[in-house]
């Protein structure tokens, strides 16, 4: 078996880190490698509440799967060339939109390869994305039925809806995507009073008092001095990182960071270096070497170093090694930019994100970033931290100067959601949801593992990737699930490494045990049908002996 499990008993001060013992044993068994890497850290007491991080698992697939995957791609690409040939000689009709006659002599707008992939690979499975829905994205949604008369080149809505599909795709972690009139009362009031737009930027005449109210609430919720909110999560990264770092600065970025972080880093003009995903050795090595050698060519010392990581990774389901990173950042005097897009609200005993999950003081993180799109069921993003930081952003953020301010009803939705989580609305509903999410997450994850699927990520992460590997299975899997009235997300190259196509489930507090059981049962059957139970780490699978109390959290 080829299994990689990293276990961390607790925090990692650097001392612990260098003392760690690495046991690696490679043995050939039935032609497979077996590799186990266990890191043992001595107990340290530098953090207030040492907390078990839980396991991040990234089981590797059997060799034959990788071979088959490459073959699969090879065949599709060969067929692609063949069909392109048929199209060129006019035997196959080309459905793609064409350049205007008047502009045929212009330089082609697209390069060939980009289009090759889209034309010959993506089009085959295109029906699995962009499925239009016509209800709120709660635990169930209604999908508008589409058919294609020309092999996925165009779609036609049939006018029918597939009702009550279980939603395993939306980032509705705490179930705040809802249309309950009572819950949305204040949002409706704000809409009536304000309308939906603002028509100005924050720095001009778009700074409404409710924006400031939201920002105070966000800061209070996160337990930091100050916060600023922006209209789009993506832009929160791409338009604020350039305000923080620039030429002569170094960004150390996790290799799997989200496009918005990469774009922000690129726009900043800082030097960017990439370390392996969640790999502390790689990060430390890079920190050490970078400081010692300084800037390239001139060897001047760096102005500052910013480490950019994500709390929960949206495709891997992994949880950041926050305590270790904090220790490294302190030792090397770097700054930390923590993107909590998927983790705020979704982890931590009271939903305050990864800092709370690890029991570290949020003030130790220099820049706390997060979005309102996911757990809060709204739109936009925030940056929080020290007052100096936020003051600087207020005067220098690209977003504050050039982008229209947030829509008032959206602001109210966030306020309502945060108040609910904090319990200041006088109910325990928010906390119930946070607990429910944690329970659901553990339940789904462990049952899937027991069934023999390869599941990536941390046991506490509500992002649950199920590895499918073969591109051919991606489409089949998603379609079969939809037939069973379960909406899932599948992703493949280029969003994942070429051999690691996967399905992804996002657990929600709004999912009931029955819904999850239905999903699990469908997955179980389907996993056998289309053979995606690749794990060789399977423990005995006896659902009837299943003890439900296992999943109740002890906290």
């Amino acid at each position, binding site marked *: 078996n080829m299994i990689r499990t990293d276990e961390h008993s607790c925090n990692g001060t650097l001392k612990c880190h260098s003392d760690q013992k690495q046991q690696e044993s490679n043995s050939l068994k039935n032609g497979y490698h077996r590799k186990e890497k266990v890191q043992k850290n001595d107990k340290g007491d530098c953090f207030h509440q040492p907390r078990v991080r839980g396991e991040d698992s990234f089981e590797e697939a059997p060799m034959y799967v990788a071979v088959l995957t490459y073959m699969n791609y090879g065949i599709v690409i060969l067929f692609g060339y063949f069909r392109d040939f048929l199209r060129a000689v006019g035997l196959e009709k080309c459905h793609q939109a064409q350049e205007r006659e008047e502009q045929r002599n212009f330089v082609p707008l697209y390069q060939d390869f980009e289009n090759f992939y889209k034309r010959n690979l993506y089009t085959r499975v295109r029906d699995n994305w962009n499925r239009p829905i016509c209800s709120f994205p709660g635990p169930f949604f209604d999908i508008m039925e589409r058919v294609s008369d020309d092999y996925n080149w165009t779609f036609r809505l049939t006018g029918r809806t597939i009702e009550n599909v279980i939603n395993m795709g939306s980032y509705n972690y705490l179930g705040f995507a809802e249309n309950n009139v009572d819950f*949305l009362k204040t949002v409706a009031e704000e809409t009536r009073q304000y309308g939906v*737009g603002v028509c100005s930027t924050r720095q001009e005449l778009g700074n409404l008092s409710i924006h400031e109210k939201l920002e105070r609430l966000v800061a209070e919720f996160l337990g930091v001095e100050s916060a600023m909110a922006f209209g789009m999560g993506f832009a929160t990264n791409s338009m604020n990182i350039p305000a923080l770092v620039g030429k002569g600065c170094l960004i150390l970025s996790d290799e799997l960071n989200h496009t918005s972080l990469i774009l922000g880093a690129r726009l900043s003009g800082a030097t960017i270096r990439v370390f392996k995903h969640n790999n502390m050795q790689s990060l430390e090595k890079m920190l050490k070497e970078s400081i010692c050698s300084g800037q390239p060519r001139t060897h001047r010392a760096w102005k500052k170093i910013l480490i950019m990581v994500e709390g929960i990774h949206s495709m891997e389901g992994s949880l950041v090694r926050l305590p270790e990173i904090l220790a490294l950042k302190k030792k090397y005097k770097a700054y930390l930019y923590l993107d909590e897009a998927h983790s705020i609200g979704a982890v931590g005993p009271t939903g305050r994100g990864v800092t709370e999950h690890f029991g570290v003081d949020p003030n130790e993180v220099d820049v706390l970033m997060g979005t309102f799109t996911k757990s809060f069921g709204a739109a936009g993003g925030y940056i929080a931290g020290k007052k100096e930081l936020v003051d600087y952003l207020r005067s220098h953020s690209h977003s504050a100067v050039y982008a229209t301010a947030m829509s008032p009803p959206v602001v109210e939705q966030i306020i309502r959601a945060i108040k609910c989580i904090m319990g200041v609305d006088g109910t325990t509903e928010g906390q119930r949801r946070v607990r429910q999410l944690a329970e659901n997450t553990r339940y789904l994850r462990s049952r899937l593992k027991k069934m023999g699927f390869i599941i990536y990520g941390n046991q506490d992460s509500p992002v649950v990737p199920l590895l499918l590997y073969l591109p051919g299975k991606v489409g089949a899997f998603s379609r079969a699930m939809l037939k069973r009235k379960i909406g899932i997300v599948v992703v493949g190259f280029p969003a994942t490494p070429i051999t690691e196509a996967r399905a992804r489930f996002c657990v929600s507090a709004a999912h009931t045990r029955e819904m999850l059981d239905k999903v699990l049962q469908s997955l179980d059957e389907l996993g056998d049908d289309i053979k995606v139970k690749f794990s060789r780490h399977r423990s005995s699978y006896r659902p009837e002996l299943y003890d439900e109390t296992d999943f109740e959290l002890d906290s």
Partner: protein
Amino acid sequence: MLKTVVLHNVLMETVIRRRRSDSVKMAAGQQWVLVEMVQAFYEAPAYHLILEGILILWIIRLLFSKTYKLQERSDLTEKEKEELIEEWQPEPLVPLVPKDHPSLNYDVVTGPPSHRIIVNGKECINFASFNFLGLLDSERVKLKALSSLKKYGVGTCGPRGFYGTFDVHLELEERLAKFMRTEEAIIYSYGFATIASAIPAYSKRGDIVFVDEAACFSIQKGLQASRSFVKYFKHNDMEDLERLLKEQEIEDQKNPRKARVIRRFIVVEGLYINAADICPLPELVKLKYKYKVRIFLEESMSFGVLGEYGRGVTEHFGVNIDDIDLISANMENALASIGGFCCGRSFVIDHQRLSGQGYCFSASLPPMLASAAIEALNIMEEDPGIFRVLQDKCKHMHKALQGTPGLKTVGEPLTPALHLLLENSTGSRTNDLKLLRAIVDYSLDRQIALTLARYLDKEERFLPPPSIRVVVTVEQTQEEMEKAAQCIREAAVKILK
């Protein structure tokens, strides 16, 4: 270095040998070449073979030997490294912002930013929000948003690809395409991200973009993200643009093979937000076909403003919209919602559904905001007279502001967002801004809400001069406009003595 020299020698030798044998048996077919080479091998003198053998071995050695890199030779000991790390002191994450920094203390608006607006506790008439058509206050729009809220809630909890496509998004795209009379439209959830995502979806490293110097910040960011080669031409100066295009043509003739793959674009704004004037679109279209350059047009200020039916600058000039490769605009000004859209032919627009970063990787627009935009479009379509009203009011305001002592009115009469510049600068930007701010404050005290046009001084490619923005909307009455102009005149007289 050595490696290349050796390789070069070997190559030369082969070439020379080929030439020799070619001259001997020129008439023979290609199949003889191999035979000849074998023959030549037998015929060659021993020293030659030995020399070549040595050369081949040498190449193999060079190929497999460890590359010698200067940078990797770090002779630092662990201790020295630790000392270096110990000594290194980073700059603070952010410099301290002085408490009186002009952009730190925002004006606070309580209540809705509509025609009547409360700024810093004072009730004013709004001359600052881009609510050109007054749709922010429209009851119809609000009701539509409310009914959408009731059905869909607020957030979409996903990007368009992953169940973030709602029926209202499809409807809005269809409606926008129909309104603009283009094949397809695509919506973004943030106005700023629209053109900033659209440009890098097409223009890549090595491509060339010709841009007007007055282009707005989101265009600048899009260009930066595209990593293309950017050439700026003087604002609205077609001769300067043609000069650059000609230069490029000469460059292309030098290397026609390369020229065949370099995409070229002209990026302009319909109505410049920074300069308040209209681009000469007909001339641009002529240049487009003459030099085979595609045109991207940013219409955030002109959409819903210019033209008989509010279709923007293409309608204003009567230019065939198909001659423009891509039109982008936000829905945050005239439509008074949130987000932006691009429209054009499907051949162009559809590409963004996989390559527009702000489209693919961001949560989609909240359905209630999309519904509001649809209703705003309905109003625009039902009552096209509104554009005429707006244009008349713009002309009126433009006229009323002429001759304000000490202030220069910048912008064309049709512009709904004018700039007031100082006629005589004090020579320092900070002081200029202070003077203008004093005028804004004076007006605020007299129920006229104005604002300074804000820029990031250090980030702008060509920083526009400090100015006061004056925005015209259909809701402003003749008297209110007169009052505003009068108030500004008074302020100017008082403050700019």
